[in-house]
């Protein structure tokens, strides 16, 4: 029982982190209809930037305080991501308006290669450290009820909290601000949005910037978990089932989906794995998502498609 709880909690927290990456996909798809495969590369790029600058800033400025240099590094990384977003809109999306999804998808994969190359040549391809002082050691709860207690991974707990706050902030941003409303308008109908004088290109830049920040936060958290290195870009593959399960266009979908996938894959690995030799969680996550799709082809929260002829 205690172990089941641990697995459950572990799954939930892992799921929260997946949602964080998934969120990037959803935001961009919602606003620009682009399935942004570069999300993984963006996570890597942002993390690299932050890791390196938090190293460099003390060297350059002789700044003592760890916190300050981290904050500064975060800010710089964010600015870099803004620049990236702006360039992508300028150099790529602008020239590919109303192309088929597949073409846009490919473009983003092109961007992926570019970012991976650029990131490694600017910041190096060794392994780097982001230390935002996340506690590493576990805590035990309910020791009274269960012998040995229920282990909670503190780092993941904090990570999940950060993720949750970010999501909350984003939904506020979407619901309350004018830009947010514009974004939703664009998401609903490009033409209509344009017709009431919303500049698509501007909106896209904003969305990519937001996605950039999301990538940065994801990169920061995953980076401090795994260490910043090339493999970070592969977390995107873990987040994909989340995206389709939740529905490409739904922010809450990304969250709920993340939790479902997280819990699902952990439970499957722990309880089914041993019978088939283990290592099943990644494909199980996809099969799980597929299962949901067979019931709701547009994902849990995606809009229903009605064929009109």
């Amino acid at each position, binding site marked *: 029982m205690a*172990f089941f709880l*641990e*697995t459950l909690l*572990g*799954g939930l927290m*892992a799921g929260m982190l997946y949602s964080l990456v998934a969120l990037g996909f959803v935001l961009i798809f919602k606003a620009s209809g682009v399935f942004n495969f570069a999300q993984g590369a963006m996570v890597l790029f942002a993390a690299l930037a932050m890791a390196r600058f938090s190293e460099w800033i003390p060297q350059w400025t002789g700044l003592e305080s760890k916190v300050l240099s981290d904050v500064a590094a975060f800010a710089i990384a964010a600015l870099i991501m803004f620049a990236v977003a702006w360039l992508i809109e300028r150099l790529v999306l602008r020239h590919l308006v109303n192309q088929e999804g597949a073409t846009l998808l490919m473009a983003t994969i092109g961007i992926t290669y570019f970012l991976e190359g650029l990131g*490694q040549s600017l910041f190096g*391809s*060794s*392994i*780097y*450290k982001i230390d935002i002082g996340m506690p*590493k*050691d*576990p805590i035990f709860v309910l020791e009274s009820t269960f012998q040995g207690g229920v*282990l909670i*991974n*503190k*780092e*993941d707990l904090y990570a999940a909290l950060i993720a949750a706050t970010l999501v909350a902030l984003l939904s506020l941003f979407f619901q309350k601000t004018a830009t947010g409303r514009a974004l939703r308008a664009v998401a609903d109908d490009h033409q209509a949005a344009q017709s009431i004088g919303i500049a698509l290109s501007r909106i896209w830049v904003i969305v990519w910037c937001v996605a950039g920040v999301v990538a940065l936060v994801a990169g920061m958290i*995953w980076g401090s*978990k*795994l*260490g*910043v*290195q*090339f*493999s*970070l870009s*592969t*977390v995107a593959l*873990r987040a994909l089932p989340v995206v389709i399960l939740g529905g490409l266009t739904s922010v809450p979908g990304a969250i709920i989906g993340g939790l479902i996938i997280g819990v699902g*894959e*952990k439970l499957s*690995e*722990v309880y089914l*794995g*041993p019978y088939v*030799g*283990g*290592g099943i*969680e*990644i494909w199980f996550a996809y099969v799980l998502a597929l299962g949901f799709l067979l019931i709701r082809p547009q994902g849990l929260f995606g809009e229903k498609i009605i064929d009109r002829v």
Partner: protein
Amino acid sequence: MKTRQLAFAIAALAASASSLVHTSAAAQAKEQFIPVLSYRTGPYAPNGIPIANGIVDYYKLVNARGGINGVKIAFEECETGYDTARSVECYERLKGKNGGASVVQPWSTGATFAITEKAAVDKIPIVTLGYGRSESADGTVFKWNFPLAGNYWVAADALVQAIGQKEGGLAKLKGKKIALVYHDSPFGKESIPMLDERAAQQGFELLKLPVTAPGVEQKATWLQVRQARPDYVILWGFGVMNSTALKEAQATGYPREKMYGVWWSGAEPDVKDVGEGAKGYNSVTLQNSTDYSAKVVKEILAMVYDKGQGTGNREEVGQVLYLRGAMGSMLTVEGIRAAQERFGKGKVMTGEQVRWGLENLNLTQAKLDALGFAGVLRPISTSCADHMGAYWARIHTWDGKAWKFTTDWLQADEQIIKPMVKAAAAKYAAEKKLTSRTPAECQS
């Protein structure tokens, strides 16, 4: 249009390729060409960079020392990104250059599998330090493969012995539970037969937990570890998987002192960003650990870096993987030297001749001292039947800042490994319809 485009593409490539061949034909006769397959980018770059630096720096050192009896080493790097197909392309590209490659190190298990099939045809020996096909230690079947200084099974056996020592004798392992957390790939699975064998003999329980490559998400695995509460964990990972495993272990409160890694999980990049968190974590070594004071390191710094020809950054010279790379170069160079002693000093050796050299390698302590490798590795001597040449390993432990040896030399049990190698090699030979070489043929 299509025909043109393709014709152009092909013509262009043919031209470039052929031109390369020509220049190489004209290349200086007194140069021994050695291709360097490296992975300085991609998921495993953190490990690949120091290795590549070590390899290249040592060749530079050899040339600075005046080459092998005057024969300078010409080398060219080719980036594989640890991708098998790319490695094969690099191999094909370089094998014909500069008068032909005389020896190759794939530095990737996947690539070793693929190149093993080709090198035999091209008559180019393959040197694999602590990776590749374990059974290729049997030189009678694997004429062209040289897993020098130890294969996976040596590592696995040494690990079991080390754990046994800690428990106070292998006998004490009876009834213990050991979890194997391994990289889900041929590399990771190579460990299993040996450990199964030992588990059967020593009567401990072996719990196998695969981690899907690259291994960025291991929560489930470590939950299982926490549930099973094994007495020891053997970590058989590579790249990001190692640091992630250590962090998960920390997060689930599994004592690092009870974790033992293979020699691909026991270098600076694997623990660097875990830092204090990895304190007490042990790993078997491919003989060498970090050694900034080794004579060879000093020489490299003096004769290469001080001349501004260093490949990497100075402070990494002497670290685990760097030294492993240098060791690889050293062994190949010594193979060539041995060949020269037979086929003519100061001559450029062909692949076949180098193969003979590698097969009749005899690195005495004296030679090692002279080369500056005293304390880095033990004497190695290979033979026709034994292409590995050494069954020795040590355990080193991360003290939060650096790797320190914590055991003396452990000798892997030849009585166990040799038969396993023989059997596996025989199986391979049968699949391939190869006939293993008789002692008579060995002399040639």
